[in-house]
């Protein structure tokens, strides 16, 4: 049993995997049609959008220096509205509009990165401000000139909807063609490229990274930029899935993305965490949401349960971490005795 605890303590991903299995087990008993294909496909579609935001958030938090992004949801709304307005009101070609939408995401991320790294404003404040700014811009963009009110747009061409609504061999298109490749690319990028390793170095110890000749600012700026692009991609998938764009599309996602990333083992102090953990965390959140929904619990308790899981996982991690630390100091003690 102790050995088992040690393994779990030293590997957060196993810890998360166990929670996920436990949740699936519980819900498959409570909810009769939990395992139906329709439901699983639904869960995946939802998980992909929150997942892309969580990936963006994870990268930014890993980059350290108090890195956090409260603006992902607002930026999602803004990117989605840009796509919607260009297509629905200015009759742009849909793919040109998509490029503009992705560009909006990239620009939003770059603006955050610029304020954080060149002006040196703490990320919490930068993204608190841009959360307001992007949300306000999304509303302004969505104003229908004829009536002077913010209006949603649902005039998307049919050849756009395959991104969010079609399946390949039963698997949602966006999972197979967009989400899974992004996951593997990010995973590879963090583990095996110089840039990914720099990101951890910068997040772990800014000073040490600087003295070893890394450009802390450049590394972090690019991270915020990538984060923005991921948000843009999520906006494309979302508008295609629901075939409309609303200025309040990302309203609840600002804090949800942070919760998902942190639950996935990304340390809020930076320099720690990986994409596999975040993937497990996305799984946990989607299963929790979906299971509670199918069990007839009110939607607001999905957030409530998420809050409990977040605090519980932080507590559990702290306890296990302390245990691991104690064991480590014990082994160190015995080693130092041996040396004597």
């Amino acid at each position, binding site marked *: 049993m102790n050995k088992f605890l040690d393994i779990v303590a030293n590997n957060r991903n196993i810890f998360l995997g166990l929670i996920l299995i436990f949740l699936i087990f519980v819900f498959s008993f409570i909810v009769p049609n939990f395992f139906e294909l329709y439901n699983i496909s639904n869960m995946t579609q939802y998980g992909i959008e929150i997942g892309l935001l969580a990936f963006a958030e994870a990268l930014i938090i890993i980059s350290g220096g108090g890195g956090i992004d409260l603006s992902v949801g607002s930026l999602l709304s803004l990117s989605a509205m840009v796509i919607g307005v260009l297509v629905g009101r200015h009759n742009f070609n849909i793919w040109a509009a998509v490029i503009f939408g992705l560009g909006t995401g990239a620009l939003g991320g770059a603006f955050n990165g610029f304020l954080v790294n060149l002006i040196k*404003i*703490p990320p919490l404040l*930068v993204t608190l401000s841009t*959360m307001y700014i992007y949300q*306000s811009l999304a509303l*302004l963009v969505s104003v229908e000139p004829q009536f002077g009110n913010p209006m949603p747009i649902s005039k998307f061409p049919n050849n756009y909807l395959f991104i969010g609504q079609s399946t390949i061999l039963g698997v949602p298109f966006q999972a197979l063609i967009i989400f899974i490749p992004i996951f593997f690319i990010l995973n590879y990028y963090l583990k095996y490229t110089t840039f990914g390793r720099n990101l951890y170095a910068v997040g772990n110890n800014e000073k040490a990274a600087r003295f070893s000749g890394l450009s802390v600012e450049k590394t972090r700026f690019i991270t915020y930029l990538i984060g923005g692009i991921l948000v843009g991609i999520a906006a494309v998938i979302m508008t295609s899935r629901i075939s409309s764009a609303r200025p309040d599309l990302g309203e609840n996602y600002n804090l949800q993305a942070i919760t998902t990333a942190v639950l996935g083992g990304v340390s809020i102090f930076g320099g720690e965490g990986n994409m596999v953990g975040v993937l497990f965390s996305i799984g946990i959140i989607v299963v929790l949401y979906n299971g509670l929904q199918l069990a007839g619990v009110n939607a607001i308790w999905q957030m*409530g349960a998420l809050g*409990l899981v977040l605090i519980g996982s932080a507590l559990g991690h*702290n306890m296990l971490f302390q245990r691991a630390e104690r064991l480590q100091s014990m082994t160190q003690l015995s080693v130092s005795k041996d040396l004597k």
Partner: protein
Amino acid sequence: MKKTMLAELFKRREFTVTGIIIILAILFGSLSSNFLSISNITNIFIQISSIGIAAIGMTMIIVTGGIDVSAGSILGIVAVITAKAALTGLPTPLILILGITTGALLGSINGSLVSFMGIPPIIATLGTMSFFRAMVFQLLGGRWISSFPDSFRRISTGNFLNIPLPICFMFFLAIIFTYYLEYRPTGRYIYAIGNSVEAARVSGIPTKRVLLLVYIFAGMMFGISGVIVAARTGIVQTNTGAGFELAVIAATVLGGTNILGGEGSAIGSILGALLLAIITNGMILVNLPALTEGLIIGIIIIISVFTDIMKLRRRRYQYE
């Protein structure tokens, strides 16, 4: 000596914010004749009283280097509980005490998670934010509460020496907490913790207990705001207080509280709240679309922090 004191005053953030407030007041006053009327000014002050009081609590938390995003949800729970108590006909002073106690209780949950369990404040309060919001829903059962007795509404409509009660509460609390933070040992401990937890611990400050106390105080402030909001709006629903935390954080930061801890004052935060309220109020009076509100608030936060950072750089440059 006097000259340095004056120079010191000019350097204070409160001074800059007051300056901006006066300039904006003159600007909006010249654009709209209603802006500087007594009724509009009273209106603005009543509007900021709930945010201002909560900002006092948020200031203490941010000074310790923490943050509390659950403020809006705490406000929601307190609003529901006091509204229910008001409907049962409980006397108003008791309702106020009930609200403060509930706030303190919820704040102590945040405080224990942060101080004794060692969970980073943003994570702990993010979790309690969602959980407390779900509690609001559970307590309300998906309905809303309105038509309170007049005795309860009087918390927001009543006067003391011709000054509306919420404004009295705000100034009273601002004075008490300014004294507490400036002159009481525990108040100074809060700043010490914000500057360096390690140094504070080594010099014998019971850091965990002080942290817990800060979150309890803040919870009490959010509780008082909750009672005022319930009494003023006359309706409590599931989303009462949603997004409130961000307005409070914005006011606190505008008022010169350093988000990294160790710096800030209660008066500054109230001035920050006043500045935000003047902007939103003035925008309505000069007919700017309400949709630009977030845009302008966001830009003002960035500019104000930017000037701080420039000042800090210049100071550092002088030392070198």
